[in-house]
Structures are given as structure tokens and as C-alpha cells.
């Protein structure tokens, strides 16, 4: 969790310094969900994420240096600088990727789950999405087919109460995302996403069942978005969290570990990641033309 926290804080600094030049969405406050879920997975399990993807990618095993190089638009980035913050992909670690359109990733995970089932393996697909994705038709279509075909896909909703800039109450009358799927034969659970242990325990139960041929499942994680929707968001639509409130919901503070060794180690690692990212050149323009079509 400290690796993700230190990474996201550094990305914030680099964005303000215009070293990361595009749109970024930070996941500070959501580390408990990323780690609780991805920590239980293998490389051959597939994870999809959305626009707030850095934490998920790193938790799934993507090297921070390659993620940071991507955010800085460098050749050494995960996607050689062609994807950026919202389109991270790391196939080697089973991170099939982030999509920038809310909800666009959900059916892709169904496809991975279908492929896993057809190939006869026990690997699973996991898709992260926010509570904002649930009100889209794509979510309903996907839930219906996942249930109809009993696909080994675990839907993980990070419910931080805000869909971009708008509170959930302005989007829907259904407070709990897990209730949205109530009519379908889908195992569902709502947990405290700030409690990494609770996330891990709940997710692992679903994972074991999916590996054994079950699915789909939906895990709703109630979480807090420490920052705005994007880095630089003035957040006029909500009160900022007071420091003592933040300590109460911060998934790292809640672990109650007094030793600062882990934090310092993580910060050193991110220093090194930045050094590696900076040393990477910008990609050659010829890369664009080569990659429009697969050969």
C-alpha cells in the first residue's frame, strides 16, 4: 500500500511540475481495495481497471518505474508512451488494462472469463469499476450475460460515493451497488474498502469459488477518494476531508503499523523509479505508424 501511496504522491508532484503532462486520476485512499484484491491473484488471472488505474496496475505487479515512465510519455513506459495514465496495459502481469470510458471495461472482463472457461483453466477475470459505472447500460448488459453464462468473473466496485464530480445520491435511488444485482444469481457482498484485511478475506472467498467453477460475483468496497476526480480538480462540489477524518478512513493509517521502515523503503523505490523513468528517452514517432494495425 505504501508503494502505491508513494507512487501516487509522486505523480501528483510531477503533474504539478508538468513532468507528467496529461490527465491523471490518483487513487490515494483506495489502496486497500487494490492490494486486498490483486494480492490474492496470480499472473494468469486477468485484471481490468478504469481511468483510476495506477494502484491496480502496481498491485497486480506492474513495475512502478515502467508505470511512471508511461505517465511521463517515455519509450520505456509499459505501453511505450502510447497509452498513458488511463490506458495502462501489462500483459506479462495479467493487467489487461485500463479503459478511459466509464464502464467500457466490464464486458472485456467477461470475454477473458469466457476464454478462461473455454480453455479449461481455473484462472479468473476481475474488473474494477466505480459506482458511477453501475448506472450505465453496459453494466446491466454485462451482469446479465455473466450470470446467464455463469462466467468466472469477479466484479469489484469501488464505491467512493462520487461519480466523477457528482454524489451518488444525484445518480440513483439505490444506495448499495450490491443491491443493483439482486435479481441475478450473483454472489454479492459489501465490505469496508478501507480495511485491507476485510477486502482480502471477502475477495479470497469469491476467488476460491470462481476457481472451483463458480461465478460471477460482485464485491462492493466502500472507499474514500482522498483527492478530486483528477489531479488539479478544485472540488467545489464537496468539503475536503479534515485531517482527523482522513486519519480515520486512511487505509494505511488504519493498519496501525508504527514502523516507518515500510514507508521509507517505498519512497526509496519510487525515487529509483523516477530516476529510471527520467533516463528513458521519448519514443520515436515511427512507433505510431507501426502500431496502428497489428502486423
Amino acid at each position, binding site marked *: 500500500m505504501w508503494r502505491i501511496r508513494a507512487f501516487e504522491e509522486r505523480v501528483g508532484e510531477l503533474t504539478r511540475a508538468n513532468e507528467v503532462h496529461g490527465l491523471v486520476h490518483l487513487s490515494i485512499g483506495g489502496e486497500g481495495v487494490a492490494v486486498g484484491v490483486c494480492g490474492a491473484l496470480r499472473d494468469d488471472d486477468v485484471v481490468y481497471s478504469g481511468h483510476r488505474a495506477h494502484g491496480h496496475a502496481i498491485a497486480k505487479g506492474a513495475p512502478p518505474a515502467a508505470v511512471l515512465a508511461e505517465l511521463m510519455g517515455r519509450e520505456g513506459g509499459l505501453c511505450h508512451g502510447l497509452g498513458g495514465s488511463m490506458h495502462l496495459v501489462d500483459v506479462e502481469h495479467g493487467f489487461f488494462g485500463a479503459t478511459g470510458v466509464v464502464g*467500457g471495461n466490464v464486458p472485456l472482463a467477461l*470475454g477473458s*472469463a469466457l476464454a*478462461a472457461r473455454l480453455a479449461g483453466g481455473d484462472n479468473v477475470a476481475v474488473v474494477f469499476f466505480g459506482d458511477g459505472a453501475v448506472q450505465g447500460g453496459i453494466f446491466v448488459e454485462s451482469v446479465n450475460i455473466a450470470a446467464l*453464462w455463469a462466467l468466472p468473473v469477479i466484479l469489484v466496485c469501488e464505491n467512493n460515493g462520487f461519480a466523477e464530480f457528482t454524489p451518488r445520491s444525484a445518480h440513483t435511488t439505490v444506495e448499495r451497488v450490491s443491491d443493483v444485482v439482486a435479481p441475478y444469481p450473483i454472489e454479492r457482498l459489501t465490505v469496508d474498502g478501507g480495511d485491507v484485511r476485510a477486502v482480502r478475506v471477502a475477495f479470497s472467498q469469491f476467488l476460491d469459488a470462481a476457481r472451483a467453477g463458480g461465478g460471477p460475483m460482485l464485491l462492493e468496497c466502500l472507499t474514500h477518494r482522498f483527492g478530486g476526480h483528477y489531479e488539479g480538480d478544485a472540488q467545489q462540489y464537496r468539503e475536503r476531508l479534515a485531517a482527523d477524518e482522513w486519519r480515520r478512513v486512511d487505509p494505511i493509517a488504519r493498519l496501525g503499523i508504527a514502523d516507518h521502515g515500510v514507508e521509507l523503503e517505498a519512497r526509496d523505490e519510487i525515487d529509483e523509479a523516477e530516476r529510471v523513468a527520467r533516463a528513458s528517452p521519448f519514443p520515436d514517432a515511427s512507433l505510431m505508424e507501426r502500431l496502428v494495425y*497489428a502486423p
Partner: protein
Amino acid sequence: MAHELPYIAAIEEAIREEMERDPTVLYFGQNIATHENDPFLKQFGADRVRVTPISETAEIGMAVGAAFAGYRPVVELYMAEFMLVAMDQVVNEAPRFHYMSGGQVKVPIVLKAGYGFTAGWAGQHTGSIYGMFMGVPGLKVAVPSTADDAKGLMTAAIRDDNPVVYFHHYLLTLEHGDVTDGEHVVPLGQAAVRREGGDVTIVAIGWLVGKALAAAEELAAAGIEAEVIDPRTLAPLDTETILRSVEKTGRLVVVDQSTRHGSAAAVIAAEVASEGFGSLKAPVKLVTALDATIPYSEPMEGYLLPDETKIAAAVREAVAEAVSA
């Protein structure tokens, strides 16, 4: 060797032969395999042949996810317009992932979409909407005009490692033609010269290739020899073959069933104006549908759409006009 088949059967033959050859080819969509005697279901089983709910977005998204894992799904969409409800998947997900991942993933899917059913199907089942897809980087767009190409282009589309939107024309469904026996691949991005001629180049798309050939015969009787080119795929577009022909004839008429401002014709005309202006002896003529929704009433359909008479008239104008020296 060849055998005679209707256009639609040639498409099915390609899908069946590819499914026999390659166990990773899947076939799913609405209203397919709805009964146990369905030939695809009987031959390939319910794992590979799947009927889906009316959920285009999820169907196409699933195809993309399965393609990441090495499968080659063919998605039956029936009407091209039904793709429009799934534009995020067709435009933003399927064709961008290979590129945005820096080449880490491939998306070998085929979106099979019927189009152009201008036979009383009115405004939402009749559009020739390939123009809005040919400009999407990473998508390939096929528009077969004959039964033989219907098979060859479907085979190529299934084998291609990119998402291909395969537009089959509904008015060609029962048109018979000689179809190559066994393995038959028409490379994507290669135009066909359907008729040679030295006076004017006609580029025609899909159903209108046949109309252009009929117009060319009529014109030949009047002493005008038209060269008729069928692009066969709109992305990649074989501009080289078109430019070579215009270099020879100096005149170009582009025939397209699309609305003019969303047409492939407009792009082809722009390419020739940009890259082949020096060869042109007369302004480029476009014979397209009007910029209007297809009307229901039969005479109004005829008023809106290109036909042999309109093609022949445009050719006569192109031949009569000359750029003043």
C-alpha cells in the same frame, strides 16, 4: 475450381471452413443457433456457437476480451445500425487496444454487419454507414460486392489480427456467383479492377459495383470505355490502384450508396484531388445518396439513391467536361 452459391451462403461457407480449420474461431450473436438443428451448433457445439441477448455492447466487448486471450470471435450483428448502440466498444476499445498497449495485445475480431437494405426497410435498417468507421484508426473495413469476395474477404477478416467490420449488402444476399472451392483468401487492402477502360474511371462500392458495370456496358455502346474499380476494403484503402487508373483515364466518377457527407466517395475524391490532381482532365464527380435519411416510400427511395442512369449521366458529364488549359 468454383461452385455457384448465393452471396450469403458464401459468407457462411467462409465462417464454417475457418471454424473447421481453427478451433479458436468462435461465432456468437443474436438469433443464431436458436434451435438444436442449427448446422453451426450441431457441427461446432454450444461452447463455440452462442446465441446472445440483445446486448450489442456486451457482445462486442466480450469478443474483445476473448480476443486478448487468443480467440477469434465473429460477432453476428444483423444490421449495421445495431453497431451504433455499441460505439464505445467498436471505436474506443476494439481498435485502440493494440496501439495504446504499445503492441502488447491483438484484437482479432470480426463484426459482421448487414447494410443498405433499401427495399422498404425505411430509416433505421438501411444506412450505408461504413464511412463513419473507415476513419477509425485500427479498424479494417470490408465491403464485398460479389459472392466470391464475400467468402474471400470473410476468410481474410477472420485470419486478420485486427478488428474488422465486415459489411455485407442486404440487396446482394441472394445474388448468385461462382465461389472458389476450398481455401480462398482475398487480401484486405487490395482493390479489384472489374472492367478495363481508357476513358473514365468509375470507383463503385458494394451493391453499386454491379450497377456501375451495367452503366459501363451502356456507355460502351455509345463509345465511352469506363474502367470500373471495386475497392473491396475501405480501410486499408487501395488508393494506389485508383490513382493508377486515374493516371490512365484522367477522369473519375465515385459511386457510393452513402449519404454524401458521410461517404467513402468523399474520401476517395479527396485522395485523388490531393495525390492525383495532375492527372485529372475534368472535375471529380460523386454519385451518392442524398444527405437524407432513407425514406420508406418506394419512389422516394429511388429518388434518393444512385442508380445506373445517374451513374451513366455523371460519366457523360465527366467525359464532356474538360479542365481548360
